[in-house]
């Protein structure tokens, strides 16, 4: 009986820590870490609407799904990155999700208006970043 009470107490404390901690983390991810209408590439701000109004949109497939998007490689070059092949690129979403991607993948990647997402046909979805806030050169 005492063992059961001790077990319940231990489980209750652990469950409370998990619920409070995970809810806190969830709330943190809902706090936008950037302007949702703008993506910053190498320190240059681009409005999402301008990206899709000013540039050619192409249809492409990734993981057997069809998307429409703008070439990410061209945008990165437009932002003034020098020697892109010698750098890695750190993509960060508005929820803080972050991925490092090589230039080869950036060259074949796209930005989609739907979900403001960076899509890489050469990589799995875990490397795709939705609600993209910034691309930094690292």
């Amino acid at each position, binding site marked *: 009986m005492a063992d059961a009470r001790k077990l319940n107490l231990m*489980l209750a404390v652990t469950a409370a820590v998990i619920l409070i901690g995970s809810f806190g*983390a969830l709330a943190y991810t809902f706090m936008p870490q950037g302007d949702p209408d703008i993506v910053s590439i190498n320190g240059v701000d681009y409005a999402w609407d301008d990206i899709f109004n000013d540039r050619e949109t192409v249809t492409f497939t990734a993981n057997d799904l069809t998307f429409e998007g703008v070439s990410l490689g061209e945008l990165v070059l437009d932002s003034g990155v020098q020697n892109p092949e010698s750098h890695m690129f750190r993509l960060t979403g508005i929820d*803080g999700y972050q991925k490092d991607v090589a230039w080869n993948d950036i060259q074949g990647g796209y930005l989609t208006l739907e979900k403001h997402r960076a899509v890489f046909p050469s*990589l799995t979805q*875990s490397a795709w970043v939705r609600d993209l806030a910034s691309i930094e050169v690292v």
Partner: protein
Amino acid sequence: MDKYRVLAGIILFGSLWGMLECMLGEVSPSWFPGGAFLGGFIGLGLMMLTRRLYGTMWMQLGMAIVAGALRFWAPVGTCVICSALAIMAEGLVFEFIFNRPVFNIHGSGPLNVRSAKTLALLGVISGFVIYTVGYMFTQIMTPVLTGGIFTWANFTHNLPVMVGAGFFAAVFGAISVPMAVLSMRPLHLSVKKRVYYRAAAGMSACCWLLVFGFFHLV
């Protein structure tokens, strides 16, 4: 329990789990935490159900491998390998938690876990741990297996996203674990072996055919 009955159970419940992962993943709306529901409610619920029914350790890892293998053939969510790996990792974590004698839910352990309150608390913990560890596992293993880049800087930066997503799995686990354990009694099979094996084989085949038919033929 007869090892062949357990094997048939692994294939049956693993196929059912994999089929639900594929089908529910397809219809889940974007606002709904579908991954947490599939891990914390469907996956954990089925693993608890079978642990209660069969009382066999490591059976649930086998189910997860079958479910992951079936999930691998359904192109839902654009990251098939992530989902398949996550399911297998969830099965492994389940075994690490519920193979401890203190959490014996089959009825022969030193401390029977029976009260709904205890089971709900256990559901919060196991739902969170199973889903979050599965998520972390895929963050590490998917780039390694698919030629992407894994960095600890990315991993640690993404911890709030992974832990935050675990909140929903914890809530779903608090519902699924008491439901699965309290609604079932340990299995004392009275059905004839031939009927049991035929039913298990037929239902497993249905799950696989449904997935292949839906995603590759329709």
